[in-house]
């Protein structure tokens, strides 16, 4: 819809992130390009720096060295152009579902009547229209997370960053949320980066998987989900039926195991 330059949504090069005055290196020389409209999953063993990379893109943390840009502009701090969804429930407990969704829009100065109209639309999108006036303490974990997703989407960010968004949910709610996310992505045409430790989730959501290796955190491999032939599946079982799915899952498990074995031997 809106004309954009051909600049990538995220362009990172030579990214280094150190903690404790250099005593610990979380990321070492990471280069990354993510195109507009792409859905990318970061996976890798615990401590590989995938969450750190996401937080750098969000602007919540600053890289020790390297260049980090979004659509050609350097990232200097957090902003509403990059919406973030956390593993912990961040829907504000003192606001109703509807007020939560409106909050992000209020922050960026959208007028009240437009906020209300858009909130109504978002409530439908995340299937929460019956709970518009409920407070989060009467919602389930999955519903709280949907409030956070709707609040982020309502701001109409260019990029959506998700840090293990469904990690705290039980298995059934988890795949419902994954399928809802595909519905949202297809409708909103957003650039999405999702950090996960769930291989199946990564394959299902992503067009491309970026596999991180640890000590120090680096990109080991970029793995396009070619077996999907450019499609995103509304139902998970449609993906399981695809030729090449099992092979992809097997390959990623093997990569993960290799990482775990390598570090426990070191």
């Amino acid at each position, binding site marked *: 819809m809106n004309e954009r330059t051909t600049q990538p949504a995220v362009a990172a090069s030579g990214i280094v992130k150190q903690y404790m005055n250099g005593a610990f290196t979380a990321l070492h020389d990471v280069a990354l390009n993510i195109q507009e409209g792409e859905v990318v999953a970061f996976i890798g063993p615990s401590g590989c720096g995938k969450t750190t990379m996401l937080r750098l893109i969000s602007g919540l943390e600053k890289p020790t060295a390297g260049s980090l840009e979004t659509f050609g502009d350097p990232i200097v701090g*957090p902003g*509403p152009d990059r*919406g*973030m969804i*956390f593993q912990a429930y*961040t829907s504000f407990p003192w606001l109703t579902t509807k007020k939560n969704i409106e909050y992000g829009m209020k922050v*960026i100065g959208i007028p009240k009547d437009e906020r209300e109209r858009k909130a109504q639309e978002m409530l439908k999108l995340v299937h929460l229209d019956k709970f518009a006036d409920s407070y989060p*303490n009467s919602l389930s974990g999955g519903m709280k997370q949907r409030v956070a997703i709707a609040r982020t989407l309502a701001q109409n960010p260019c990029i959506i960053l998700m840090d293990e968004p469904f990690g705290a949910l039980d298995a059934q709610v988890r795949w419902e949320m994954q399928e809802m996310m595909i519905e949202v992505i297809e409708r909103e045409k957003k650039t999405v980066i999702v950090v996960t430790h769930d291989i199946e989730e990564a394959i299902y959501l992503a067009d491309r998987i970026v596999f991180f290796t640890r000590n120090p955190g680096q990109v080991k491999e970029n793995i396009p989900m070619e077996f999907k032939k450019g499609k995103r599946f509304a139902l998970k079982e449609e993906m399981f039926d695809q030729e090449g799915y099992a092979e992809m899952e097997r390959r990623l498990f093997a990569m993960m195991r290799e990482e775990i074995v390598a570090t426990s031997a070191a």
Partner: protein
Amino acid sequence: MTQEVNTSTIITNRDAPAQFIRDADTHAHKERFFELLSPVGGRKAAVLGVIGAILFFAVWEIGHYATPEEGRRFLPSVEQVVGRLFFLFTEKEFIYDVLQSCLRIFGSFFAASAVAIPLGIMLGSFGGFKALINPTVSGLRYLPAASFIPLLLVWFGPSETAKMALLFLGVLFFLIAMVLDNTEAVQREYTEAALTMGASRKRIILEVIVPAAMPAIIDSMRTMIAVGWTYLVIAEIVGAKDGIGAVMMRAGRFLNVDTIMAGIFMIGVLGVLTDIMFRILQRVLFPWNVKKKV
């Protein structure tokens, strides 16, 4: 839907020593008063609470009658103390002293809160500000407020200001520390989420940190106003013509133990009322925070 489970094979492990099996059985069946992880609420809690209070008054009453005749005036009975309290209200204009005490405590507590809450929230929100201020405030917290009495008397004389200042100081430094903790305990992701939405610092403090911390802050206030009563009595004992503490102090000179105990009783009642008031406030202000019944 119901599935038959062969429970006997699960509960009794034939290879386990006999005493373990016995132990497991008591855990499973016997209802015990001292049970771990068994919160009590509702009717049962109310009944137990009343029983506890009755026990307290019973021990007091027994204490009175067990004391030899000539010493009983030093431990008056429950009915004597309650009767005395009634007498103080009807004949001695005790209501005036009670109101005076309430005015002192609520006035100074309000002033202390007005300083401590904004300051505590700022300290909890900004690391640099905390590093600058907090070590000094923590130091002051270790000074007993009562040690300020001579200083306050020199500065303000035996005035109302001196009493209010003692109450103020007694509460202030602890309340700052508690509000600071309450603020830091706000889930980090709320602030981070607001930051990624592009909210300003002012907006985040007023619209995220304050509402998130407020229920805990009200609880801290509830705890600290109890400490306020301690300093109130000290202040009124040191030099006041009126107030509950002054009435008790005067009664002490004439060994009017029933008046002293009536005063203590009155403070207890006021304390419980204040506590209830804060709990109601909590429910009215933060309906979203009321825990769901399980």
